[in-house]
């Protein structure tokens, strides 16, 4: 059972979230090709190890939370708001800590 550090609410149980998949794909511009949209909707890396994912905090603040999670160990390295860029482990320094409620 995961404990996810929601950037707004603090650390909450996985049960409060809905997993929403790959957060690394970026929606193409509206005038991009059909092929680009096809990639955006269907093609996924399915990495073994670190991955950036969406976890929608439906049971709390209803924010789309970005989570860097290890698909092998379930370890969570960082969480952030929808527009934050989160580094993967080893690529940059640990992300800054936020002030937030203890839980």
């Amino acid at each position, binding site marked *: 059972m995961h404990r996810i550090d929601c950037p*707004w*609410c603090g650390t*909450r149980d996985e*049960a409060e979230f809905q997993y929403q998949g790959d957060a690394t794909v970026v929606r193409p511009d509206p005038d991009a090709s059909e092929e680009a949209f096809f990639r955006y909707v269907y093609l996924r890396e399915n990495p073994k190890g670190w991955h950036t994912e969406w976890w929608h905090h439906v*049971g709390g*603040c*209803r924010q789309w939370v970005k989570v860097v999670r290890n698909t092998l160990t379930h370890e969570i390295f960082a969480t952030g708001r929808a527009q934050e860029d989160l580094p993967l482990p080893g690529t940059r320094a640990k992300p800054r800590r936020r002030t937030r409620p203890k*839980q």
Partner: protein
Amino acid sequence: MTEFQTIHPLGDVPPQSVESGDTSGITLNVRHEISMVQIFARNGREMELAKKLNIEGVPGRASETRSFTAFPLAPGQWMLVSKNAPGSGFGTGIAKKLKGIGYVSEQSDSRVCIRVSGSQARELLARGCRLDLHQSVASKGFCAQTPMAQVGVLLHQVNDGPTYDLYVYSGFARSFWEWLAHTAGQFGYSRGGRGH
């Protein structure tokens, strides 16, 4: 004009109680006559809005003002709860204040407020609430949105008694109440008079 009786989602819950044994038990109250609005700051106007209403946007902390309590729900979003009855113009008053900087959604009827108090209140809530409500972590003014018994709840710790207010969606209110009363049986509980 037709006159009619307003109804409350918990209006027809039969009065029940369970004798408490050696504990001082639980008191469950339904708070009537409150108004609620959900407010949103326009993009980039969050600080201005907070200042205007004299509230804070610190997640997990309720702000008390003279006329209402503000619960931060999400960035730029609050639920304001006033002790004035719906129809007292609370929502329109706030809307007037926020003109140009924010938006107001009337929510007075969307949730009921159940007040849980008594020395065992924390233990009762732990039967359904996944959050840490221990006094070292959560104290007076603590607030959170979290599901309890499969129902979304806005939880507010009113005092360190502890007393909690649970704001529950109206449609789920009856089901939630039944779960709460069933669970409270082990501590013994009574229904207090009309809360305020």
